[in-house]
Every structure is written in C-alpha cells, then in structure tokens.
C-alpha cells in the first residue's frame, strides 16, 4: 500500500479550484517532483496534502503506517522569519513538537534527536547562532533539520532551492538525494525541471494538463516534452 494516494483530487481556496482531477500515489522510498507553471496550484496541492486546507473534491488517503503528523515539511520562508530572533537550536527543537503532544517541555530524547539532525546536516557548529544572521543555504538546512525532527518517513519540500546560488543549490540537492537514499520519501515542488529530471523517479505535472508517472514516461509524454522544451528555451533566453 502507498503512503499517500490522491484520488480525483481538486485543490483550491475559497471554493475556486486551481487544480482538478489530480491522481497520484507516493510509495515508500519514492522521490516525487511536482512541476508546473506558476499559479498552477503546486503549493496549494502541498498544503492540501499536509491537511492545512481541505480538498475541494476527491480524497487523499494516507496509509502504510504513515500517520498524519509524521509528514515533515519544509515550507517557503515567510516574511516573519526574516527578522525572527531565534537560535538554530530553538528552531530545530521545535520540530519535535509533533512528538510532544500535550507534553509542555522537551525531554532528553527530543534534544538528542535535534542534536543528531543538526550534526547530520552539518549545522551543529551554528546551533547558538541566530537564524536571521545565517546565509540562505544555512537557513534552509536549519528548516530541513527541523523537518527531520518531525519525521523519519516522508518530507515535503516547497521550492527548497529558491533564492540560493548555484553552488549551494547543488549542495542542497545532494543533501536531499542522500536523505532519499537513506529511505526517506521525498515530495518536492520545483521550478527547476532539469533538477526534477535528474533526481526524481516520479513526476507529477499539474496545470491545464495533468500527468503522473515515472520520469521516463514523462519525457515521452506530450505534456512532458512541451514543458521541458519551453523551459529549455527559457534557460537559453536567460543565458542570451
């Protein structure tokens, strides 16, 4: 059985659908990339998967031993966070909220888990530093460490490399690939179709045409070919 299964899903807000008839499944170990034009409802879909908003139609079935609060989430940065006075340690630890339930304080295990994840992502030496003084790449690692405190199974990443320079972007992708190899299922929203095709094993394309399938199937589909070509052009335009 799959971790996540979407059936005839419609997503949107205030009754207006931005994406309809979306069907896909996420199995343990998958690396799924969600691609599509701006405004096609990628972030809305992710919020719906996370149960932050209700689907307008259809359903999402969570299964295979995955609990609703076991989904780690790397959101896009909010303006509030840009000047938020919090140390790296405090933020990573807040990922343990899910384990706490009603328990008001963090225990030794929570702290050990936070420490472990900071070491894993190489931000241990920053733990007393203030979040807002870090570089963009370091901030993303902090949020990723926090997400790992919340889950051992599945991570949802919303544009994890937006605003990062090419070198840091590549490091971030490597990091995510390694997490995937360790057995953590990845769902990633990306603008970056070439990265999606490099790293993901499955592609969900949403927009006017909806496609879900393996990377190879996507490259052979009309939707996929059109999208890839339009983006390659865009890339050339940028270079030119």
């Amino acid at each position: 059985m799959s971790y996540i299964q979407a059936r005839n899903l419609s997503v949107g807000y205030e009754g207006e659908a931005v994406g309809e008839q979306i069907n896909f499944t996420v199995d343990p170990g998958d690396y799924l990339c969600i691609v599509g034009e701006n405004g096609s409802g990628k972030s809305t879909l992710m919020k719906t998967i996370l149960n932050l908003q209700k689907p307008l139609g259809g359903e999402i079935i969570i299964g295979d031993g995955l609990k609703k609060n076991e989904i780690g989430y790397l959101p896009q940065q909010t303006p509030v966070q840009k000047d938020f006075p919090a140390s790296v340690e405090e933020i990573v630890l807040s990922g343990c909220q899910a384990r706490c339930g009603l328990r008001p304080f963090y225990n030794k295990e929570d702290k050990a888990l936070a420490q472990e994840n900071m070491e894993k992502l190489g931000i241990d030496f920053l733990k007393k530093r203030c979040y807002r003084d870090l570089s963009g790449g370091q901030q993303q690692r902090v949020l990723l460490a926090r997400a790992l405190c919340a889950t051992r199974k599945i991570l949802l990443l919303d544009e994890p490399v937006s605003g990062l320079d090419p070198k840091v972007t590549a490091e971030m992708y490597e990091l995510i690939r390694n997490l995937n190899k360790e057995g953590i299922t990845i769902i990633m929203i990306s603008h970056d179709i070439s990265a999606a095709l490099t790293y993901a094993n499955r592609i969900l394309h949403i927009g006017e045409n909806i496609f879900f399938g393996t990377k190879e199937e996507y490259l052979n589909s009309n939707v996929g070919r059109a999208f890839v070509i339009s983006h390659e052009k865009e890339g050339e335009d940028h270079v030119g």
Partner: protein
Amino acid sequence: MLDKLALYLSKPFVQNALIVGVLIALCASLLGVTLVLKRFSFIGDGLSHVAFGAMAVAMVIGLTNDMLLILPVTVVCAILLLRTGQNTKIKGDAAVAMISVGALAFGYLLMNIFPTSGNISGDVCSTLFGSTAILTLSKTEVWICIALSLLVVVFFIFFYNKIFAVTFDENFARAVGTRAGTYNFLIALVIAVIIVLAMKLVGSLLISALVIFPALSAMRLFRSFKKVTVFSGILSVVCSVAGILISILAETPVGSTIVAVDVVVFGICWLIGLITTGGNK
C-alpha cells in the same frame, strides 16, 4: 528626596500600585514578543479602544462592576482580530485599525450623549491616559490582578514551546499536528485579559507601549527567543517600577511616565545594539 520616597513606600496604596504595576508590565511584555513577531504590534491599541468603548457602555447603563462587560467584549474582539490572519478578506492591520477607531468613536459618543457625571472630558481623559486609578486600588482589585497575572505567567511557561512553534511557523506547526488554532485562541484570550488589566495602569491609549517596547528593546540586544523573552520581562518590570517611583517623586502622571521610561530604555538598547553589531542589523 529619599525620605520622601521612603515615606511613600510605606503607604499601602503605593505598595499596591507597585505590585500591580510590576505584574501587569511582566505579563504584557511576555506576550509582547509574540505579538510583535506576528506583526500584531497594534493589537494592544485596538483592543484597549474596544475596552474603552465597552467601559463607556458600562458607565451609561450603570453597571457597578464594569469588568463584567469589558472583559468579555474585549476577549471576543481579540479572538476575531487574531483570526483574521487566516482568512484575509480584510487584512490584519486594517481590521485592527477599523475596530480600534470605531470603538473609540462610539465610546466617546456614548459618554457625551448620556453623561453620567459633570466632567466628561475629565472622565475621558483619565480612561485614555490612565489616571490615579492605579493609586486607588481596592484590596480585591489587587488580589484579582495578582491571580490573573499568575495565571498568565503559568500559561506562558507551560505553553512556551508551543507559542514559539506557532509564532515562528504556523503552517509547519499545524502540519506536524500542533493545534495552532487553539493556541492562537488562548493567546488572544490572554492578551485581552492583560489589556483590560493594563488599562488601569497606563490608560487605553498607551497600552501598546507596555506590550511592544520591552520586546523591541530586547530584540535589539539578543538573538534567541528565550533570551529575548526573559530580558523583555526583566526590562518591562524595571521600567514600570522606575516609572512609578519617578511619577511619585516628580508628581507626573503614572502611565505616561512609565511609557516615557520604556521609550528611553528602547533608545539605549538600540544604541547598544548598534555598537555591538557594528551597525549590521
């Protein structure tokens, strides 16, 4: 001068004022950090005007214990205001401004149409800018204030980690199963209680100062949420004690003196912050 101070400090009414002043300042500053970071700095202002409006209504209909009306009305408005963050038909700041001036206007209107005493402008002025009310507290009022403040502090300590999570990243907190809605509701409830209490101290126009200045001052100097919270609590208490003492000695109005001290301290913290970070932040 010290003699004068000693004489005053031996009087029960001054002791009461100090106890209440310290507690209110502490409570206001604790939640101030959250409110400033959530971009709700002006909620104190908005809610205190609501409380002013409710007080005017209570006066007109002749309620002896006006708290019975002011507290529930303020709490309801607080919950409505903090909810607007989620459905954004009217943006948070606009909603606060609307309720704020609306309640102020209606309050003043009511007090004028149905005057209950000969000195309306005096009444209005004292509710807006705080009055001698802090110096004429009854034993019961002091005890109510102590009890409510303790509740606020205990609430804050117990839910500190949740408040942090919800303030820093509400979506993440909700995604991993924290009941953000419930905590926002509780924060609204507590902030309303604090504001109603603080009206006695500084009056409804100056309450925002108690909420935001200590938090902003602490943020100039510290870089972790815990330190900012603790330090803003300490600053707020020190400022309010200093303000009350100065106002006794210099015979100035209590509320505005406390706020003036807060402003000066903010200036000092800002300078220190500027020097220590080399002007980077």
